[in-house]
């Protein structure tokens, strides 16, 4: 658990820890040179040591993103085509699903949508006779069953 916090600390204060590491290695190099021992490239060694912090992937990811942005800026025609294609593709799909959802998936806003019935092309007077909604609604034993709903 503590290790995760320490790892996060290394991520947040990367620059400071990197400077400290650089200082360590610079010192090591000075001493090694004094003893006449060869010392490798501090930059490469520092990178290897930083690997231990486990955040190298973030640096790589940033590099990749920057590279991609640079490439896209260089060829605006391709960028425009790609963006349009994605926009249209996603937009059409969202619209189609929205319509499908409205018509098919979403249940009617009534308690018992399975037992709903349609009155199509029925004159108002006939409908009032067939389906005296106001009366049913007011009767005490079927309070919830009948609800008028107009699309």
């Amino acid at each position, binding site marked *: 658990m503590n290790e995760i916090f320490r790892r996060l600390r290394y991520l947040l204060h990367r620059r400071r820890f990197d400077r400290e590491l650089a*200082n360590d*290695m610079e010192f090591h190099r000075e001493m090694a040179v004094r003893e006449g021992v060869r010392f490798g490239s501090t930059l490469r060694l520092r990178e290897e040591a930083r690997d231990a912090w486990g955040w190298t992937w973030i640096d790589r990811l940033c590099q990749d993103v920057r590279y991609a942005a640079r490439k896209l800026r260089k060829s605006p025609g391709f960028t425009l085509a790609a963006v349009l294609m994605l926009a249209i593709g996603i937009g059409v799909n969202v619209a189609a699903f929205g319509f499908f959802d409205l018509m098919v998936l979403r249940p009617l806003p009534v308690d018992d949508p399975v037992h709903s019935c349609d009155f199509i092309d029925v004159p108002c007077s006939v409908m009032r006779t067939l389906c005296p909604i106001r009366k049913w609604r007011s009767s005490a034993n079927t309070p919830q069953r009948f609800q008028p709903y107009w699309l």
Partner: protein
Amino acid sequence: MPKKEMPSGALLLLILRVLRSGPLHGYAIAQRIHILSSEVLHVEEGALYPALQKILLKGWATSEWGVSETNRKVRFYRLTSAGRKQLEAELSSYDRVNKAIQDVLRTA
């Protein structure tokens, strides 16, 4: 002077053991291992600093600023109690493996 690389597990064990006598900076750790091993073991910088970073990350040691023999600001690594415990654990497991290898070498 013969130089030998060592497996990273052994390096961790040696660093922890060397730090038990007191806080040291990176160069001194490498030097001490080199000298105490009668100049047989040579700690590469490319192995030492990743190992030290790992030790810091695991909380086995903390680093603090100090001044070197050459009057230069440098980080000293100090063993923590968790590091001491880890050292004990690694020592006992090393002893077990070492004994097992010796047994095989002697009897096979």
